[in-house]
């Protein structure tokens, strides 16, 4: 059991690492508009799958690392990710029963909240968004969710992370 825990942490860390890389890949303009925040989505997955191991605080710390990595205000993504972790944690019992496609709609809501919080804070410090496009990554996230869910579920089962 202890070994499973150890491997589990390693796999989770790797999934976040890959998510961070996926979010930073340079892309053509049209695609980058909808390119989802993979870190937030991986966070939602682990929060749904392992709510007992993965708390709001963990989400907050990951958000803080994202802040540093992106050169954002310290605490900006941390706040948004904590909120996402909270929402996912409060609904995980229901969401687990859903098919990935039905989950995707809830994920859309979580990601919209996250985008809104991040850009609201940007607005407060003098960088208001110019148009509604800043919400587009949430839609991209919804579309990609079933795929991510299936992949991460298989990974979790393969490594027997509980």
């Amino acid at each position, binding site marked *: 059991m202890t070994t499973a825990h150890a491997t589990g942490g390693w796999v989770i860390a790797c999934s976040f*690492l890959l998510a*961070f*890389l996926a*979010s*930073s*890949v*340079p892309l053509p303009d049209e695609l980058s508009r909808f390119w989802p925040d993979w870190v937030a989505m991986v966070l939602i997955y682990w929060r749904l799958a392992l709510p007992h191991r993965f*708390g*709001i*605080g963990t989400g*907050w710390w990951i958000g*803080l*690392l994202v802040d*540093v*990595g*992106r*050169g*954002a*205000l*310290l*605490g*900006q993504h*941390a*706040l948004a990710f*904590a*909120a996402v972790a*909270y929402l996912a*944690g*409060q609904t995980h*019992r*229901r969401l687990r*029963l859903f098919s990935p496609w039905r989950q995707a709609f809830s994920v859309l809501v979580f990601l919209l909240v996250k985008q809104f919080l*991040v*850009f609201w*804070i*940007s607005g407060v*410090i*003098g*960088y*208001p*968004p*110019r148009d509604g*496009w*800043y919400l587009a990554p949430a839609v991209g996230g919804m579309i990609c969710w079933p795929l991510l869910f299936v992949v991460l579920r298989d990974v979790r089962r393969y490594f027997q992370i509980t």
Partner: protein
Amino acid sequence: MAALKPSRRIHDLFAVNPQATLQLGLWVALSIVLMTVDHRYHTLDGARAVLATGLYPLHYLARAPADLRDWLRTNLAGRTVLLDENAQLREKQIFLNAQLQKLTTLEAENRRLRSLLESAVNTPERVLIAELLAVDFDPYRHHILLNRGRQHGLYVGQPVLDQQGVIGQIIRVDPLTATAILITDPNHALPIQINRTGARTLALGTGHFQELELPHIPNNEDVKVGDLLVTSGMGGRFPRGYPVGTVTKVEFDPGSPFAHIVARPVAQLDRIREVLLLENAPDTAQPAAAAAAPAQP
């Protein structure tokens, strides 16, 4: 009892965990404190620098696909393509050399004239090359991350250029990386001069890579589409005379005292790979550090 069980399970599905709400409140409060401190007092720069250094390899990993593509392109290019490119570069080299000759004489002449006028002699700036590590994901904030930092002698306020013209300036220096704000960032203002007439104004960022705004130019000022804008050297951050952009639109509105003028940066800000960092002579860089700061560095 048996009948109660399923209903309780259903109820469980909608259970709200009050402890989690409290937790969220605490974390949100902590974020707000952190953001306020980071935004107002900049006392967290040390902590950020430590974390940023830890994340440094990640940026390199993220760049790996693009680097691989470049590597493949250079290594798998056909012989004829390389020969062609070589010939083109040689031609350009000759052309540039010819221009350079003219420049040396002009520079000498300029120095002589300046000494006649007893004005300060422009010391030649040192140049450092840096590569782009990452672009801020936030589309309304034009920040870029460079692979040089305090270790390489970068400082806040250092001008950043590319081959064509001014890109921006450094706003944060970490041990191994530095963040630069682009001139198109909505919070950036750059003191400029219209090359043809010498009229001075600011070039304000608009949040679009192709647009700069020139406020405070009176309606009767002589500005034409195509005019070159160069740095004016006011404020002391940017040395004088580096190209910034060309005027693309001039609109006179009789109702307002100022013309509406839009320019396009000469540097291709959306496809930067490598940048040049100018090092001002220290005595000119120091005193004016605050003067030309972006509205919110």
